[in-house]
């Protein structure tokens, strides 16, 4: 099932620079994600990993370079248009809609796919009911996928931390993206939950055929699920390749472990 490695990239960042005032958070970064793959972005703290995700999803402006998703240049699009173009993310610090129920959170994920006009919403026409029923069913599928169907009517804010992470995942999947970006999804999870997350990420790639971009500190998870790994250091891309190749790269070893070895 794995496509040949020379397939056109799904996401292509070329020479992307992000500045905050005078600080270069990201300098001419190149980063690609291939279709049907899990690509991890790793690096020491402050290397600019989250900045890459923010640049891709439009939460920070890009000073130079281009971001192309599936052949479409999304560099200058506002965040909500990028979601429509097919890239959706989760957040390092959870951004669950706490006042909505678990199911409503996931239904909100289908906002752009649930199409009916203002008049239909005001009158609750049969077309509206059909669309809402469909939205509910698809949202439930995603909740079952991550194993949260049993708490669908619970207020999302009442879920324990680990399950809120899964909820964000389900909500993002509900948008049926081409590319899913996960910002430190294992942060705060125990070993058992992390293992389940790894299964989930593999299933997203293999069963849902959604490409995954993964920013993560847990190296066991990264090396276990990734097809490709890119290493970032102080805003510069350092190395890129398969997990084995990257682990053997002397530059990477130096960045992570210091100069002595």
């Amino acid at each position, binding site marked *: 099932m794995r496509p040949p490695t020379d397939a056109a990239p799904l996401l292509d960042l070329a020479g992307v620079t992000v500045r905050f005032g005078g600080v270069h958070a990201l300098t001419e970064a190149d980063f690609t994600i291939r279709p049907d793959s899990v690509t991890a972005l790793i690096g020491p703290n402050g290397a600019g990993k989250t900045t890459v995700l923010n640049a891709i999803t439009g939460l920070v402006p890009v000073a130079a370079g281009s971001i192309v998703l599936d052949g479409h240049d999304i560099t200058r699009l506002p965040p*909500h248009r990028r979601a429509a173009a097919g890239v959706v993310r989760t957040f390092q610090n959870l951004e*669950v*809609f706490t006042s909505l129920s678990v199911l409503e959170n996931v239904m909100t994920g289908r*906002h752009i796919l649930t199409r009916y006009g*203002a008049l239909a919403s005001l009158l*609750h026409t049969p077309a509206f009911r059909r669309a809402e029923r469909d939205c509910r069913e698809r949202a439930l599928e995603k909740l079952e996928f991550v194993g949260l169907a049993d708490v669908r009517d619970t207020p999302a804010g009442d879920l324990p931390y680990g399950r809120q992470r899964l909820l964000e995942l389900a909500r993002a999947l509900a948008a049926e993206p081409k590319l899913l970006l996960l910002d430190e999804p294992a942060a705060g999870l125990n070993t058992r939950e992390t293992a389940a997350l790894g299964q989930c990420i593999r299933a997203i790639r293999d069963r849902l055929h959604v490409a995954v971009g993964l920013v993560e500190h847990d190296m066991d998870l990264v090396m276990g699920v990734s097809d490709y790994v890119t290493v970032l250091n102080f805003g510069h891309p350092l190395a890129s390749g398969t997990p084995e190749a990257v682990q053997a790269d002397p530059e990477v070893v130096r960045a992570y472990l210091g100069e002595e070895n």
Partner: protein
Amino acid sequence: MRRSFFGRNAVQSTLFLAVLLAVPFVVPNDYYLSICILACLNAVMVVGLNLLMGYAGQISLGHAAFYGIGAYATAICTTSLSLPVPAGMAIGIGLAAAVAWLVAIPTLKLKGHYLAMATLGFGIIVSIVFNEAVELTGGPSGYVGIPRLACGGYAVETDRGFYNLMAVVLALVVLAARNLMTSRTGRALRALQVSEKAAASLGIDIAAHKRFVFVLSAALAGLAGVLYAHYLCFIAPASFGFSASVQLVVMVVLGGMASVWGSVVGAFFLTVLPEALRNFEDIDILVYGCILVATILFLPDGLAGGLHRLLAKCRRTKVPHAPAD
């Protein structure tokens, strides 16, 4: 179980309308009926303001300005310009919505206290215009000679007739608001209140949704304004000032944030309460204040939340041996 063709919201609104229409048979005279009319007018506005405040989380401290814009626009159109009443009303609602659209562009970029101050400033500016543009608005002494509500050959002459109309309008507004809030738009508004970042990254156009709900709530205030003008046939700037705006906000909070029924309860409660306190004569304001403080202290989620919990408690005590699941 078969789902009825009409949704739950439609059934509840119909029941609500039936209750409203029964009120004239209970109240002793036209004075009390006029209080009920004012309560309905307030409820229309408070429901609109709650869509903005309770659901989308954006505060407006100048909402009475839109009420005034609607009232003055139809007053001027139907007297000086001698347009028919329905045309004046349409212009009044349209103007309130158009002004809101313009105001929304700069102000909805603001958040929290800054948005409160911007809308407060807007309300004060409009209030000054009502007072100072004497040739247009009649100034502080008010605008007289506004025609009664009429459409074609049919005129609403009695308070009873006007009240029935208000009951229908309010029931429809409640239905529309509840329908809208149980749609993707409602979910998007509640979502962006919690996290704009997450909502935007799921494809929700934050600016467009905020602007839409602001314009909608202003249009509802405009609707209340035009009806008010043609009911009293006299309007004065005092009804549309800062204290009126604050009162609307209090009704929203007291009734219950993000609850359409709460807004209705809040509007009726705070419109009727001062009348009920007339017996206290000199200390009525004091009692009014104490009741407000006590309600907020003991019912932090508003009258609607309090009633909801009371009902839930009754249901639990009625069924002491609920099967465990």
